[in-house]
């Protein structure tokens, strides 16, 4: 028996475009056609104005580190200590993620540091978006 891995998402009709995007190497957000707001997590209407007229678009993948904790307890699929982070995307929304290609220490993980998205396939259906220090 392999060790249990990390919890994985189960897409729904309203979120399928996002998970199709990560598999295609794109971070997909949504924008309201009526009020112009960029938003996340996915839903088929704008949470700012209620409009159902919204468009999926490819985000830049650029972000800054907004806040995090360094978790020291065991969780399936993770080797502690590891950071659970929230990043602020260049387009506005924030999302939870992990920071990769970076020591998981308070010294290395500075708030507001510039990050860029990377994609890691977990199986043949689910690819997760992570972030690493920006390479410029």
């Amino acid at each position, binding site marked *: 028996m392999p060790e249990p891995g990390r919890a994985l*998402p189960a897409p729904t009709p309203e979120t399928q475009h996002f998970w199709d995007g990560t598999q295609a190497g794109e971070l997909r957000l949504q924008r309201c056609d009526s009020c112009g707001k960029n938003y996340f997590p996915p839903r088929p209407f704008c949470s700012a104005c209620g409009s159902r007229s919204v468009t999926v678009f490819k985000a830049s993948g650029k972000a800054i580190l907004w806040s995090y904790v360094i978790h020291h307890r065991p969780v399936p699929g993770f080797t502690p200590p590891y950071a659970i982070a929230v990043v602020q995307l260049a387009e506005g929304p924030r999302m939870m993620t992990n920071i990769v290609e970076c020591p998981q220490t308070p010294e290395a993980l500075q*708030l507001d540091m510039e990050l860029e998205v990377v994609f890691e396939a977990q199986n043949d259906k689910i690819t997760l978006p992570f972030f690493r220090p920006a390479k410029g």
Partner: protein
Amino acid sequence: MRRNAVAVVGAAETTDLGRIENLSQIGLHADAALNAMADCGLRPKDIDGIATAGQTPVELAHYLGITPTWVDGTAVGGCSFMIHVRHAAAAIEAGLAKTILITHGESGRSRIGNPPRRVDPQSLNGQFEQPFGPMGPPSMFTIPVLRYMKRYGVTEEQIAQVCVVQREWAAMHPRATFRTPITTDDVLNSRMIAWPFRLLMCCLVTDGGGALILTSAERAKDFKTKPVYILGTGESAETPMVSQMEDFTSSRAFRVAGPTAFQQAGISVNDVDHLMIYDAFAHLPIYGLEDLGFVPRGEGAAFIAARNTAPGGKLPMNTNGGGLSYMHSGMYGMYALQESVRQMRGTSPAQIDGAKISVCHGVGGMFAASGTIIFSNETPTYDW
């Protein structure tokens, strides 16, 4: 809703707190409910309204032998019980019920009759938070704090002071789980859970329960217990996902629920004699003090470190020791309400002399929801 039109006439916790291996979760609800009924001389047949979270109100009505004309199963986490008080007060004023029982029970430590929590992988939390490795509140409720610390220059030492001060209050309570004094170093040297949070900055995990009985202020005069009036109430909700909070340095739900209650009560923060702010983790009293307007932004931690909320301070807060030291079964709100009621009755082991107004502020989920209750022990003076 009018001020002071409804009062708490019955209040009690479970017979035991801590590790309770002879009762399941519904049994803890019932033990607390029977204690609260005994407190004010009522029996189940006298109750016509029921509210609870954790179990359903249907389960409790049946288990206790109650035939309700009003039920409320609002379940938004640990502040559900503050919101039940708010809804119950409105229901009594509207004539939907005369005598309402609110119960809480949770086998948080022994986990008897308490199904494990599971995050549905199709939910927004399951899709957009759970894959990144959180394991319950200690690794999620704490995520916003680094942003708060950076914005206001707050230190880990200052946050640790919350735990030190609350332990001083807990030392006065015979039923508190942890009563031995601690130092800042004790907090900072305790086991790392989710940096910057150490073990002593996180709440306990214990078994227990509590219950409240509310009726009209007019009818409250007929009870042997000292009435504790509902002066003002507020509630709100923000997001089930901590990553989606509007502002990591402040809770929108706090900023709605708190002022709503103060406005209804017709008081300002300067009128408050006693304060409870739900403390599942050490940063919550800091956020609460700021979001309810007791101190300016960024000054909550320094206010606590300067001993303003400690024994002898000008704003006694979390006088039972809080979720950090008194008890925390998972949904702590009921225990904060119980301490507010004790303070208004004049029966707390850490009694604040002359306290007339107590504010009890709760959080649900991880900054997901909030409820605020303002209590008074002064008899209403206006005409009915």
